[in-house]
């Protein structure tokens, strides 16, 4: 019945051009009947506000309908650009060669490469692939470029790199809030021959390096090289262009190698990846240097925020072509990173990956957790975080090497359990192993997502701790007289329980401190936050000491052999220094909580005056997840209020929390001398303690009544321990 439909085509028409209604078939034995006049008349008979609709209509659902022709919702809205890639190509939007003049062709090819790099960085930063990298018409029809070796090799490796990165991010599933990243629907992302991208690139690189050698050779030798065609026609520019190409191509090559090495199982490629990272960074530096040359020969006027080194607009890109593929998101106006910023982004990414490559395989769980937290301090972007997660958790094993039950037995300092079948099959151990995997994955996500997820898994950890405790009491409650040596089962249960509780408090402390990074607390909340941190740190220290006592007890009983002693004492020192560091956190958070409470009580600063929610409500809002998980038990707003209500400046000053912290710091400095990260942390803490001690003394001496004294809090020395700043107004 298509011809019926075709018959109707004549009836429609706008703008005088024939509309291909014929290609949209009506149903069987039916035709398209023009209903506009009828609808217009019928609508005229409707009352104001009256709708004609069926029974399944819901106003709520109707409100979420896409509004056609609204540029913010309608991704297919007709723009002034081309209707399709083919039309764009037919109209010369992406010519090959890019110019018939070989010098201009070379210039433009570099611009395309640079713009693609800017697109790629913008994509990594969270925009859709369709509107960034795949706004490149050459990339959309990659076969067309095969006659242009330079462009072809660059496009191929860019596409292969995008593929590798998408698969890494998708495998890691660290992109819950960045799920736009892996959307590649409708894009020609996978094509035949991309596996050969490296060999294509290598042969192009080889040709250009020969061309570079040829143009640098003294004239006497030139004759021999004359059979080699130069890159372009202007001999004065030959060297500059050759160099500009070489660093760009080599960067791509090494970056691709980095990604491939990082995906090698069990972290076997880390060493090699590190070398490629170094090469990448040096090529990036060369690219940056090429900017001067490219600007000097550019054929247009350069702009500072340009997406190319030369400052010229590249040919062969059209953002609107793909905008309809960027669904399900509404089409967004994208501001691409400038080329300089893109180079900066890749430098940062490579530095983050370099840190990752330094990860010591075969680690203790404690060290792994600390490594991830340290890694996150530089706020790495999605791609780096995804790779860290893939490294840490492979095939359900830590770094693809150790089963998590073995990791736990190592953490319990009960090495004899490592190959113990019963231990591995123990349902608690299996569950805890799963929880550790989840924890590691969560620690690799972005801060906001991480905090939310940590708050949720606290519940799981606390439940399993309770179950362990119950099981322990049930089985060994009446056996208090049994010596531990005689009952391995009891020993393991006890160790496991203490260890699980310690992890729970560690998660809680991470949850609380992340709130500072995300700026979730207001200065009036700091008092309760530090108080809660203090409580959590105290519990964490308690559990840590219990674990240490239990394991040293264990090793003493076993009668260690002599040669283990040195190794052991080294570890003991490490253990005791982490206890001391924790003790320092305790003094600082207690000191800050009490100082803030006293300032509130004596000087009436940092008082809660919100009309919307009171202090108790805010307490619940901040710590609800901790309280639900009973981390720690019996903590309530009233306990907080009780312990801070009577805080007075003179009392707090007398207590000298900050002086205590300083005393510990002095002893810690020596033990961390070989670890720059920890040393930096200790130095920061030292500053915090010193500044707060002085501020507290000043306020205490002047007295709370002096209204000209202004106290404010700053995070100038440490990400989550504030420094009080006293000023006279």
């Amino acid at each position: 019945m298509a011809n019926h439909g075709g018959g109707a085509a004549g009836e429609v028409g706008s703008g005088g051009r024939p509309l291909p209604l014929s290609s949209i078939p009506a149903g069987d034995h039916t035709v398209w009947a023009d209903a506009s006049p009828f609808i217009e008349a019928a609508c005229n008979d409707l009352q104001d506000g009256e709708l004609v609709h069926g029974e399944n209509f819901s106003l709520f659902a109707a409100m979420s309908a896409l509004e056609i022709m609204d540029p913010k919702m309608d991704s297919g809205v007709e723009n002034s650009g081309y209707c399709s890639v083919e039309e764009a190509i037919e109209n010369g939007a992406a010519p090959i060669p890019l110019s018939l003049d070989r010098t201009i062709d070379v210039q433009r090819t570099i611009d395309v490469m640079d713009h693609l790099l800017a697109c790629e960085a913008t994509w990594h930063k969270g925009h859709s692939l369709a509107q960034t990298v795949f706004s490149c018409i050459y990339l959309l029809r990659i076969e067309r470029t095969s006659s242009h070796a330079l462009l072809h090799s660059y496009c191929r490796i860019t596409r292969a790199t995008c593929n590798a990165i998408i698969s890494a991010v998708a495998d890691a599933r660290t992109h819950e809030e960045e799920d736009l990243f892996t959307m590649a629907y409708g894009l020609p992302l996978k094509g035949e021959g991309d596996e050969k991208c490296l060999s294509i690139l290598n042969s192009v690189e080889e040709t250009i390096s020969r061309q570079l050698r040829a143009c640098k050779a003294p004239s006497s030798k030139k004759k021999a090289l004359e059979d080699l065609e130069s890159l372009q026609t202007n001999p004065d520019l030959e060297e500059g262009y050759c160099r500009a190409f070489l660093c760009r191509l080599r960067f791509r090559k090494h970056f691709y190698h980095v990604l491939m090495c990082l995906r090698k199982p069990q972290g076997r490629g880390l060493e090699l990846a590190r070398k490629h990272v170094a090469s990448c960074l040096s090529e990036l530096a060369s690219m940056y240097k090429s900017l001067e040359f490219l600007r000097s020969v550019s054929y247009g006027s350069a702009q500072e925020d340009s997406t190319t080194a030369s400052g010229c607009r590249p040919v062969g890109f059209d953002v609107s072509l793909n905008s309809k593929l960027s669904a399900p998101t509404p089409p967004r106006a994208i501001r691409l990173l400038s080329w300089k910023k893109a180079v900066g982004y890749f430098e940062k990414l490579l530095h983050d990956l370099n840190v990752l490559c330094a990860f010591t395989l075969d680690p203790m769980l404690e060290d792994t957790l600390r490594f991830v937290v340290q890694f996150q301090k530089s706020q790495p972007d999605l791609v780096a975080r995804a790779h860290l997660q893939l490294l840490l958790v492979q095939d359900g094993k830590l770094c693809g090497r150790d089963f998590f039950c073995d990791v736990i037995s190592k953490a319990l300092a009960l090495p004899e359990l490592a190959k113990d079948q019963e231990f591995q099959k123990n349902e608690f151990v299996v569950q805890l192993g799963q929880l550790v995997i989840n924890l590691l994955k969560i620690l690799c996500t972005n801060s906001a997502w991480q905090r939310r997820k940590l708050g949720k898994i606290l519940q799981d950890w606390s439940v399993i701790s309770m179950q362990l405790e119950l099981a322990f009491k049930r089985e060994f409650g009446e056996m208090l007289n049994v010596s531990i040596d005689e009952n391995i089962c009891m020993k393991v249960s006890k160790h496991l329980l203490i260890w699980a509780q310690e992890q729970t408090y560690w998660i809680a402390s991470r949850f609380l401190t992340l709130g500072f990074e995300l700026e979730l607390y207001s200065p009036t909340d700091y008092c309760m936050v530090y108080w809660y941190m203090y409580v959590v740190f105290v519990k964490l220290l308690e559990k840590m000491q219990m674990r240490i006592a239990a394991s040293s007890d264990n090793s003493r009983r076993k009668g260690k052999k002599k040669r283990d002693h040195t190794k052991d004492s080294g570890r003991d020192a490490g253990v005791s220094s982490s206890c001391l560091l924790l003790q320092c956190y305790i003094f600082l958070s207690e000191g800050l909580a009490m100082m803030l409470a006293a300032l509130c009580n004596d000087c009436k600063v940092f008082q809660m005056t919100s009309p919307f929610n009171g202090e108790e409500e805010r307490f619940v809002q901040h710590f609800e997840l901790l309280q639900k998980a009973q981390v720690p038990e019996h903590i309530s707003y009233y306990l907080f209020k009780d312990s801070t209500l009577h805080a007075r400046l003179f009392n707090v000053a007398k207590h000298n929390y900050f002086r205590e912290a300083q005393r510990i710091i002095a002893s810690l400095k020596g033990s961390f001398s070989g670890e720059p990260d920890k040393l930096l942390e200790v130095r920061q803490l030292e500053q915090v303690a010193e500044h707060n001690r002085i501020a507290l003394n000043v306020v205490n001496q002047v007295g709370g009544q002096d209204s000209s004294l202004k106290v404010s809090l700053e995070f100038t020395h440490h990400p989550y321990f504030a420094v009080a700043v006293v000023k006279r107004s």
Partner: protein
Amino acid sequence: METASTQNTQDPHSDSPLVSEGSSGNSSPLVAQLRKLLFRRMLIGVNDGRFFLGLFHCVDKQGNIILQDAVEYRSTRRSSPSPMEQPSLGLIWIPASCRSSCHVDCSIEEHMSLSSLAYWAMRLFGSRAKLGIE
């Protein structure tokens, strides 16, 4: 957010004065006829040359139309008629101001009656307009 959820829980057209029940109230034969077109396949052209094919879901007095399960037909060439692409869009709202054509899928007999109805309606509408001017 709160208002949206309350709207969701209530029957949206039971007590809202702005939205009257589709099946009652209006006695116009044209509106009755229009109601019969509900859930029929409808093809709407918009000003930029695209077409939307979907099930007729709702229309208001201003002639804004909502289509259900809609797909988009667009030309891949500006110059000549050419193959169409059909990304599916779901529920869409086409403002009357953007609508350049509107077709319903119907049998040939129905087509005749609809055009005569339209013809009759146009005359009626025209004379009413005239009355208004006079």
